């Protein structure tokens, strides 16, 4: 394609080029909204039907790790926004620095997600043959009096849940299927975002992003913030269904 410096042949000015790219990215994000929207819709219908099982499933998630991850992701959005700002005001080294910070925070998020997934494997909470909502209660070894009391409460809760929903084993699997599908799809987007960031960092190290030309930083930023928004909804919907007792 013919291009003069940063300006591709089909555009008249850099502003027009940036405007077109941004609009294109937004239109892609609309399709993403509807893509994730389908999953949220499935979630809503099943949560409505099997609320008890979804509450039991949700309460097995580690709320501390979830909250930390939310904060990590919000912080990565801040560093991404700051990378855009740095490019706009022409601070080339800051652009690279903020992009690396964003990549680092994104990696921390994925790392914590791995820890959470591992816990679910250990606790037999992966949908399939080994699935067992009772596994944790049956196999826990409480050390202190508080832990013993907690375990008794959990056992009581599961018993009550089984009375309301006799088929809690399959319905809890439905919750975990959605949990893994939704967080997995979100994590996949994070991995794609991390790839884009690595590319941006490489380009940025060559000093390519300036106040006149920073379109790639801007549109990867849009993508990154969108992924953040998905998590902003996923966190309360998956972790905080039925916490008050």
């Amino acid at each position: 394609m013919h291009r003069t410096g940063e300006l591709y042949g089909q555009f008249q000015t850099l502003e027009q080029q940036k405007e077109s790219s941004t609009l294109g990215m937004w239109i892609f994000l609309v399709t993403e909204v509807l893509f994730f929207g389908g999953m949220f819709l499935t979630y809503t219908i099943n949560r409505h039907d099997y609320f008890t099982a979804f509450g039991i499933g949700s309460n097995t998630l580690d709320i501390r790790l979830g909250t930390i991850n939310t904060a990590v992701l919000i912080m990565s959005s801040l560093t991404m926004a700051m990378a855009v700002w740095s490019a706009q005001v022409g601070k080339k080294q800051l652009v690279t620095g903020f992009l690396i910070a964003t990549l680092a925070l994104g990696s921390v998020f994925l790392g914590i997600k791995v820890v959470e997934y591992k816990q679910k494997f250990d606790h037999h909470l992966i949908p399939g043959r080994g699935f067992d909502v009772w596994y944790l209660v049956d196999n826990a070894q409480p050390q202190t009096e508080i832990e013993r009391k907690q375990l008794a409460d959990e056992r009581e809760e599961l018993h009550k849940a089984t009375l309301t929903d006799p088929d809690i084993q399959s319905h809890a699997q439905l919750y975990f299927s959605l949990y893994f599908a939704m967080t997995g799809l979100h994590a996949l987007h994070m991995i794609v975002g991390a790839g884009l960031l690595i590319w941006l960092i490489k380009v940025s190290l060559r000093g390519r992003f300036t106040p006149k030309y920073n379109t790639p930083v801007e549109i990867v930023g849009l993508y990154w913030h969108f992924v953040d928004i998905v998590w902003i909804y996923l966190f309360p919907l998956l972790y905080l269904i039925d916490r008050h007792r």
Partner: protein
Amino acid sequence: MTGIARKWGESIAVAEHSEHIVSPVVYMGIFLALLVGTGLTVWAAFQNFGPFNIVIALGIASIKATLVVLYFMHARYSPKRTQLVIVCAIFWLAIMLSLTLADYQTRNRRLSHLVSAAAIYRT
């Protein structure tokens, strides 16, 4: 470029000559608001508001999402055209959610019902 294409190109080019740079102070403010929102969501989840727990959780999430879209994604300073695209996204999502949920609400659809209905049909 010929006639119409040129005209379009120029009108877009002329409309966007100045770029709005959002200051780091605003970004920091939004970041802090998002953190407060997260804390508030977690706190609210442990209170018993009955049927309003989910409303509060989604309300806070929507406020957070709006802040991200308006400031981090610069929607507030974007041209009308981009803002229209964003509104369309919300509108289409609303159509998908409301029509599908309305359908599920008004239909007898438990799988067990379908199975027994099929069994009756066969006999």
